[in-house]
């Protein structure tokens, strides 16, 4: 569901399409932009090689050939899987990486629980995934990549940086005066606001806006699944945005909030903005009104 931004681009900004969505790179020192883009391309390619579930040659997909045997994996995939397992643990399983198969058969599969993140065994440089279990690291992978890119650019190019991957935003280094300005809006007809986030902060938005799964042309579904049923989560909130100190944290909290439904506000830890099914907006934990 790519929706290119209509935001202006200048000498400090690059924008391009990746992973069926839009990447946007903004730096405080325009002279650093070409080098920053090169680093971002390298990092995104590495993450893609490691965990793109749509590529049969990705390391993640090749893991499926292990059929439940312990398998040596790269440090990058190990970090991605560890990050996903930590997110699952901290959300009580609301965010679960074992939804890969359920996403592939979205709308056609039976109502049953996901295999469960506890089935994944990690030790040293090995991982063991039970036969038949498919991992989806898509959302976490995008947030992880944003954090990675921001830190890489700030540390290597001596510039403040903001990177947005499909609307999941990470920053590092110095920010412009007043902070990074972010439009929080999930579509042309959706309620919107503009906020400023401090240097080093991140933001992610999860959405239940519907789309046509490729194999179901006659049905509209959203893609945030409740691991307890492997079905799209109930839409108490149609959009949740969360700010945190990393994009992985923000994405984990925003995704979990969608899954938790009406109980979400009491459990989200960061500043958050929740748009209810009726379009009303609720802000919590210091999100500006």
């Amino acid at each position, binding site marked *: 569901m790519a*929706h290119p*931004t209509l935001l202006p681009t200048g000498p400090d900004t690059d924008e391009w399409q990746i992973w069926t969505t839009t990447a946007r790179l*903004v730096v405080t020192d325009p002279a650093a932009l070409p080098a920053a883009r090169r680093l971002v391309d390298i990092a995104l390619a590495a993450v893609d090689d490691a965990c793109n579930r749509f590529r049969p040659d990705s390391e993640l997909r090749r893991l499926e050939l292990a059929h439940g045997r312990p398998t040596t994996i790269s440090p990058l995939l190990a*970090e991605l899987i560890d990050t996903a397992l930590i997110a699952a643990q901290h959300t009580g399983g609301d965010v679960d990486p074992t939804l890969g198969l359920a996403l592939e058969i979205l709308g056609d599969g039976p109502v049953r629980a996901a295999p469960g993140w506890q089935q994944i065994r990690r030790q040293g440089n090995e991982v063991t995934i039970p036969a038949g279990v498919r991992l989806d690291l898509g959302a976490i992978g995008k947030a992880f990549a944003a954090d990675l890119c921001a830190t890489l650019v700030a540390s290597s190019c001596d510039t403040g940086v903001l990177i947005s991957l499909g*609307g999941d935003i990470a920053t590092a280094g110095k920010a412009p005066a007043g902070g990074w300005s972010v*439009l929080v809006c999930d579509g042309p007809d959706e309620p919107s*606001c503009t906020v400023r986030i401090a240097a080093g902060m991140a933001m992610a938005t*999860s959405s239940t806006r519907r789309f046509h799964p490729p194999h179901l042309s006659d049905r509209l579904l959203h893609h945030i699944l409740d691991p307890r049923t492997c079905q799209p989560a109930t839409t108490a909130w149609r959009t949740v945005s969360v700010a945190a100190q990393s994009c992985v*944290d923000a994405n984990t909290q925003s995704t979990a909030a969608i899954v938790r439904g009406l109980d979400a506000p009491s459990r989200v830890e960061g500043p958050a903005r929740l748009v209810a099914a009726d379009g009303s907006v609720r802000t919590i934990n210091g999100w*500006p009104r």
Partner: protein
Amino acid sequence: MTQQMYPARDRGLRRVVLITTTLAAAGLVGTGAAAVLAHADSTTTSTKTTNTSNTTNTSNTSNTGNSNTDSGVSSGSGSAAQAQSAGS
């Protein structure tokens, strides 16, 4: 600052050191990048330790990593957006 689920920035920097070292070994980035990141990791970890021990922040620049509000998010009405946060 709201309590985070885990020390994300420290963990993130360590992660980047690991990954950059890997990229450098593959010849994708210069080995200097790993050294720079390793330095940034130790510096940030040290800074974080200082900031969590109630030591007065002596930085005069407000945009070097500290929140400009308690939550790190403030109203941006009227400012030109540099990015858009949306579901994908």
